[in-house]
């Protein structure tokens, strides 16, 4: 299993970030998930956080190291998240159950499976175009599907944020599942909230296709924020470049081995800094020096005040 992953969550122009993103993996299975806590109801961020925790915990229990049935896992995980939100609402004594969207993807043995609730999306990009994407559980999507409005009208529709399925609501969530989709070298998987796809819409694929997600995704978020202007929603995304192990083995030689699956690796630290050492004593000394300066300038300030 070999992939490059980038995740980021931005607050946009909102006071609160109610989006949550997470990923984890075992040796054989990878889990990606994005949840967008709903602002119209209280404590959307609680719902999103609980959902993410519940699904990630469930994954860690089940993926040992592979999931016996990934489709069943998705269904059970989303159901567990829905229950967990209700339990948390009861525990905190919240009158209105908090709600969240959720999109989850599992990749195991080079096959992707995904499921979603609400209007957070999954895209599979291959050869520069969208091979597959989720259909939002939203009023405008229904109107578009029935031919009542065009996609362009949907973008301007006053009720474009209205969704009819979510986790944590009073109704049993409607969950849509993908087919088993074998991945190929170069495929890109994208999970994101409406704060990302909303402003970008049809450009999303073009901005990401044939790029390294590490560099294109931050740029794309900048662009989404720029287009949203003064009313940018929270923006959250997880995107991966999928690489076929065998193809890699042919094109790369042994200086790029696949990392063990249970460690995180980060971009290499600048090697010129390797000479920098800082002992505990030096840290303490620096802090003490700063605190003295603060005391001194506070003292002068008080002197001036009196």
């Amino acid at each position, binding site marked *: 299993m*070999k*992939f*490059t*992953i*980038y*995740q*980021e*969550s931005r*607050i946009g122009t909102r006071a*609160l*970030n109610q989006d949550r993103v*997470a990923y984890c993996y075992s040796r054989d299975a990878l889990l990606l998930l994005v949840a967008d806590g709903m602002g119209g109801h209280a404590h959307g961020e609680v719902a999103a956080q609980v959902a*993410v*925790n519940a699904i*990630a915990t469930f994954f860690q229990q089940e993926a040992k190291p592979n999931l016996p049935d990934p489709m069943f896992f998705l269904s059970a995980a989303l159901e567990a998240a829905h229950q967990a939100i209700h339990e948390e609402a009861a525990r905190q004594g919240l009158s209105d159950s908090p709600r969240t969207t959720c999109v989850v993807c599992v990749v195991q043995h080079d096959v992707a499976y995904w499921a979603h609730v609400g209007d957070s999306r999954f895209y599979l990009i291959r050869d520069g175009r969208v091979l597959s994407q989720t259909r939002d559980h939203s009023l405008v999507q229904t109107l578009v599907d029935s031919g009542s409005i065009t996609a362009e009208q949907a973008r301007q529709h006053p009720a474009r944020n209205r969704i009819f399925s979510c986790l944590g609501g009073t109704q049993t969530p409607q969950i849509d599942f993908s087919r088993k989709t074998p991945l190929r070298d170069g495929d890109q998987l994208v999970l994101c909230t409406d704060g990302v796809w909303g402003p970008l819409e049809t450009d999303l694929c073009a901005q990401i296709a044939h790029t390294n997600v*590490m560099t294109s995704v931050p740029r794309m978020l900048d662009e989404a924020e720029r287009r949203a202007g*003064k009313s940018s929603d929270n923006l959250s995304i997880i995107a991966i470049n999928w690489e076929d192990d065998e193809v890699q083995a042919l094109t790369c030689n042994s200086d790029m081995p*696949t*990392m063990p699956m249970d460690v*995180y*690796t*980060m*971009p290499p*630290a*600048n090697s*010129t*800094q*390797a*000479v*920098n*050492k*800082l002992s505990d004593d030096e*840290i*303490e000394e*620096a*802090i003490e*020096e*700063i*605190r003295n*300066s*603060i005391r001194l*300038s506070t003292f*002068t*300030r008080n002197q001036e005040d009196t």
Partner: protein
Amino acid sequence: MTTTQINHALPPGFQLDRYRIERQISLGGFSIVYLAYDDNETPVAIKEYLPNTLALRAEGAILPEIRDEHRAAFNHGLKCFFEEGRALARLNHPNVVRVLNFFRANATVYMVMQYEEGHTLREHVMKKTGKVSENFMRIVFSRLLNGLREVHTQRILHLDIKPSNIYLRTDGNPVLLDFGASRQALENDAPSLRPTYTPGFAAPEQYEAQDTLGPWTDIYAIGATMYACLAHSSPPASNQRVENDTLVPAARRWQGKYSEQLLGTIDWCMQIDRQKRPMSVFALQKNLMDPPGGKQAARRVRDKTQS
């Protein structure tokens, strides 16, 4: 496999030293800033050193994980964070953010700053639909330059002045924030972790050799910030200007809408050749405080500037 993990913030309600975390205010590549309350329930802003390429805090964790091979780089960044602390601790000026405390916890360090009510100059300008008034420009920037003068007097350069690093208190008084890029002038320390600069506001010399930085570097950023206030967008990046200057001079772009003197002052600050810019903040400030229209207008600006 490469991964980039954005660090998770400390949870609301977390007791950090003698402060209680309320919520995250902002997240940068090198730090997280929180709103917190001290034991007297006074709000403070706490900046946590947490470079996201070097230290990982997992969901729900408190201690970040710092791998051995990143320790040196982490420590180097720590030194820069100390520099910022040192710089700010020495400063005592109403137009410069005030540092209240500095401490070590959770395998990293924290800087406690006075929490200011208000909004950034960027937010102010973006929210405004009409044009920013000449008087607003003169008063805000004259006061801000009072703070910057003090910074330069302490032989510190800010090096990242831009609309989002200038805070307007609810009383309209500006405060200079975020000395994360600041550098002590005339002190040749190790190069910083990564020179931080913001395209559009960083002077051309910030893209080049570090020994050409000086007060004129911050002055370029002041000019660019003023330009951005009028334009409601960032001016072109200075490294691009060096190759092909597409910047429309303020004097031409807003001719007749603001005084020639104000527009000329902006263009003066934004000269690509640093030797053609005002050599000191004082020289620049004099211009802002002497608007055309005689002594009366000048007194109006001056009175408001010193209040």
